[in-house]
């Protein structure tokens, strides 16, 4: 695997954030992988959840704070039957105009429902979850918001969580 023809994006992104947005920023490094829990049921029986960091939300939900230097670790829960036309995007880290034309490029909700209806997966969680991917101050994400979403997914008896960045 080769990333971006030699560009070290982690270094470029770090320098970009530190010089232009949030001077204290640095990556939060780890020296070991996080725990791995295997999928314990066949996909055809699995209850699947989806999380995007594309800054998607319902039009009547609060926008993500794209002006905060340290980012915004909050999240939005979106009912899984929501029409893509009812969703909007607020994210300062990428050009949302493309995804606005076809939200399946960041939140493939229509394809997930097709997979469920076709029996490829067993069911979908009650809600999909959305974050805004620029979160430079990560303590609240790790200590509060992440565990809160995890608790909701566990309560929903989810077997598998798929996560997609932007």
């Amino acid at each position, binding site marked *: 695997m080769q990333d*971006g023809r030699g560009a070290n994006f982690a270094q470029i992104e770090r320098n970009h954030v530190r010089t232009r947005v949030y001077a204290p920023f640095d990556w939060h490094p780890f020296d070991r992988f996080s725990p791995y829990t*295997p999928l314990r049921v066949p996909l055809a029986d699995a209850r699947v959840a989806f999380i995007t960091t594309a800054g998607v939300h319902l039009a009547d939900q609060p926008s993500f704070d794209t002006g905060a230097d340290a980012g915004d670790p909050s999240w939005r829960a979106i009912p899984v039957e929501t029409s893509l036309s009812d969703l909007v995007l607020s994210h300062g880290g*990428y050009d949302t105009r493309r995804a606005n034309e076809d939200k399946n490029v960041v939140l493939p909700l229509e394809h997930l429902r097709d997979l469920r209806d076709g029996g490829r997966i067993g069911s979908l969680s009650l809600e999909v979850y959305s974050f805004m991917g620029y979160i430079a101050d990560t303590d609240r994400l*790790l200590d509060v918001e992440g565990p809160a979403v995890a608790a909701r997914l566990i309560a929903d008896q989810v077997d598998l969580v798929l996560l997609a960045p932007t």
Partner: protein
Amino acid sequence: MGLLQRALDEAGLCTLSITQSLEITAIIMPSRALYVGHPFGLTFGAIGDRETQRAVLAAMLDAAATMTHRGIRDSGFEWDRDDLRYRQLRKERR
């Protein structure tokens, strides 16, 4: 994304993420990730390219079901339509 995945992993959930940056994922080290070389903001493919969007999602499900160890799998999806991803990786605007 990787930090959020770590929080879910720590809670005992089965997770599988897409990564669009091998370097960042090597730092954060979430349990299991699938590398997709698409531009940021076009994670699942181009606008209207439902075939690729479905294929990336299918690759996620396949990885979730068959990766029996922690680490990164290469999906083989790359972006050759234009230089958008190349410019994004270098923070170049045009």
